[in-house]
């Protein structure tokens, strides 16, 4: 790294002077998306290869960049103001994630509250119903007037999803205890609780994989099952991706704890991941209520 660690003159705020990782990240994103675009329409057979190259570049970039930041943090380059920057940045990043899920929740509400009743003749759509879709019954869940994807069975709330709710809520408690233990200087307890959180997160993902498999093989409930299947899989799928990301981040934090990183005062990376974990948890509660239960 061509950085000047003492960074004289920048006050006490650490400013790196050269950044090799962002361009690697840009190339990685570009290759990943170019590859995906080529692959989706089978434009050339090299699509998947380009995609994998992009993904590898992104992994290299992430580990390199975060490695640098961890190194700088452990060398004590970050003063409280840098710490505040990270706090603001993480908080606003989570807000952007909230809005991302908001798009899908909003779509679900729009369909359930307005579109499906209208197709069934509600409001001033009487003739739309009579002329276009006379046999459509406005009930949820639905795969639409054309019954796309064929008859299916919706996912009941009180099986795997309820267990998964308990798992995630428990994991929120364990991650909180872990962070509290770190602050109290009880590193042993902190590690155990963090490991427990990771295991809970992983078992959530295992349960979800099982649930998806079950939905496809036994319920005929697929991505193609009309608006119900579409909203179900986009919401639970993106949530699952975020849980996966969260588990990876928690694992990095655990490895850092084992290496002796973090102090009782200085541990924002851990705190940021715990914020993220709570965010994922809250999104799940919304999912459980609006996708599975109601």
């Amino acid at each position, binding site marked *: 790294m*061509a950085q000047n660690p003492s960074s004289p003159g920048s006050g006490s705020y650490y400013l790196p002077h050269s*950044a090799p990782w962002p361009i690697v*990240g840009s190339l990685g994103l570009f290759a990943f998306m170019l590859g995906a675009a080529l692959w989706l*329409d089978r434009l050339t057979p090299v699509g998947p290869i380009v995609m994998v190259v992009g993904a590898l570049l992104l992994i290299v970039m992430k580990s390199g960049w975060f490695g640098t930041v961890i190194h700088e943090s452990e060398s004590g380059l970050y003063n409280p103001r840098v710490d505040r920057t990270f706090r603001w940045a993480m908080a606003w990043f989570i807000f952007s994630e909230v809005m991302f*899920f908001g798009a899908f929740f909003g*779509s679900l509400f729009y369909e359930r509250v307005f*579109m499906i009743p209208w197709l069934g003749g509600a409001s001033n759509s009487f003739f739309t119903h009579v002329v276009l879709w006379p046999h459509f019954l406005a009930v949820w869940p639905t795969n639409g007037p054309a019954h796309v994807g064929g008859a299916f069975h919706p996912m009941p709330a009180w099986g795997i999803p309820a267990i998964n709710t308990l798992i995630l809520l428990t994991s929120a408690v364990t991650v909180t205890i872990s962070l509290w233990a770190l602050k109290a200087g009880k590193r042993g307890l902190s590690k155990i609780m963090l490991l427990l959180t990771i295991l809970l997160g992983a078992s959530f993902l295992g349960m979800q994989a099982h649930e998806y498999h079950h939905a496809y093989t036994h319920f005929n409930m697929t991505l193609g099952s009309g608006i119900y299947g579409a*909203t179900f899989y986009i919401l639970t799928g993106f949530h699952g991706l975020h849980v996966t990301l969260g588990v990876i981040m928690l694992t990095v934090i655990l490895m850092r704890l084992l290496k002796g990183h973090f102090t009782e005062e200085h541990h924002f990376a851990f705190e940021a991941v715990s914020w993220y974990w709570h965010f994922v948890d809250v999104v799940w509660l919304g999912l459980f209520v609006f996708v599975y239960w109601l």
Partner: protein
Amino acid sequence: MSSEVLAHEHAAEHAPPRGFMRWITTTNHKDIGTMYLVLSLIMFFVGGAMAMVIRAQLFRPDMQLVTPLFFNQMATMHGLIMIFGAVMPAFVGLANWMIPMMIGAPDMALPRLNNWSFWILPFAFTLLLITLFLPGGGPQGGWTMYVPFNLQLGYGFPFMIFAIHLMGISSVMGAINIIATILNMRAPGMTLMKMPLFVWAWLITAYLLIAVMPVLAGGVTMQLLDRYFGTHFFSVAGGGSPILWEHVFWFFGHPEVYIMILPAFGIISEIIPTFSRKPIFGYRSMVYALASIAFLSFIVWGHHMFVVGMPVAADLFFMFSTMLIAVPTGIKIFNWVATMWKGSLTFETPMLFAVAFIVLFTIGGFSGVMLALVPADFQYNNSYFVVAHFHYVLVTGAVFAIMAAVYYWLPKWTGHMYNEFWGKTHFWLSAIAANVLYFPMHFLGLAGMPRRIPDYPLQFANLNMVVSIGGFVFGLSQLIFVAVIFSCVRAGKKAEARAWEGARGLEWTLPSPVPYHSFSTPPEIA
């Protein structure tokens, strides 16, 4: 002035590295700001060339030059490139350059992230422009990407979707950086209510960006799933709805138009006081007006879709909430005029652009209020009146403000004064040509000419020819802009630290050109 001395000393310590890698790996807010501005200028000409194709085709009726298919690609790409490639990066470039200097910070809060935000963009536009050379051509469904048109594109479809994803990632990271900078990097004594209005405008814009770019990302992801993975978000057969796309898109799209105008408001609020030699009139009300406009932008999106058949109650709600925006906007116009009132006015190029902004943006604002009326909108919808409206707010609004900003801060960036004669020539040609270009569009629209068509009935011929002539002159005039910038970078009268007599604000306490690192020691603000 002590900060000036310090900055000088510091500049000797850290001269910028030489060569190509400087630009690839830089973390310096000035370098990154420059790259944003250059990218924006290039994209302005790429999108402008597409506009020239559109106006050449419409110069005379009866399908003169290009196929309808290609015309639609030009119209769509013109919109996407001007919005995401020209206007937004220009404002981010100005934010990068000016915000740290205006609040007395040594750099942006997250310099590496800043580099990444920029370096995603060239790749995003590569993806977008590739589509023009693929089987089936580029996007043709309009920049609004309405379904089902958009789902029927050729091989370019996923390229466009991923380009939008990349632009969104870049914007969100850039916005996070700007917020963190403004909230955390201000010099001691620079309280929120002492911040320059450009900084305030960007704080609020950044919030809008973080709130709505992810929604667009989610929306285009749903399109991707509908096309390739068998979902039915936007098809009625499966219980979905094409109208759902319009709601998702405009929930993003309306705040997006404020993302393109709030920083312009900030720029005008810097320039008008400087050349009036008076402080801004009603600073607090300016801040509250910005915040009100941002809040209202989230509850007005339905005015883009009055004709899709929403319930009357929804139409009424969106009509009234939209008209409410005229109140804070009116406050801002009033305050700019009141700032000029009894000021010692001079009319250098930045001021000319700023005054033109006030007049012409107001015209666009008025036609906006006309479009907000549901029954009137039923008539205007999808006509050239709409095209006239948003070009008044975006070209004579946002773009004029960007040009004003470039002329205003060029002496600070380059250390040279630009050529005032050619600056003024550029202004007068642009201002006159823009009105020849856009004003007759109102009449064309009211007479019933639809937008996004490659041909038209004979009765529209004369005005279309006038519009096209205005367009060509406007396009060519921008070459003067480039020439003025180039010659100002290379040479010119030496600019003083306070390049404009009436200029206040921290950036003018730094020497011109600004040293590579500024405010390494924060200034004290009384």
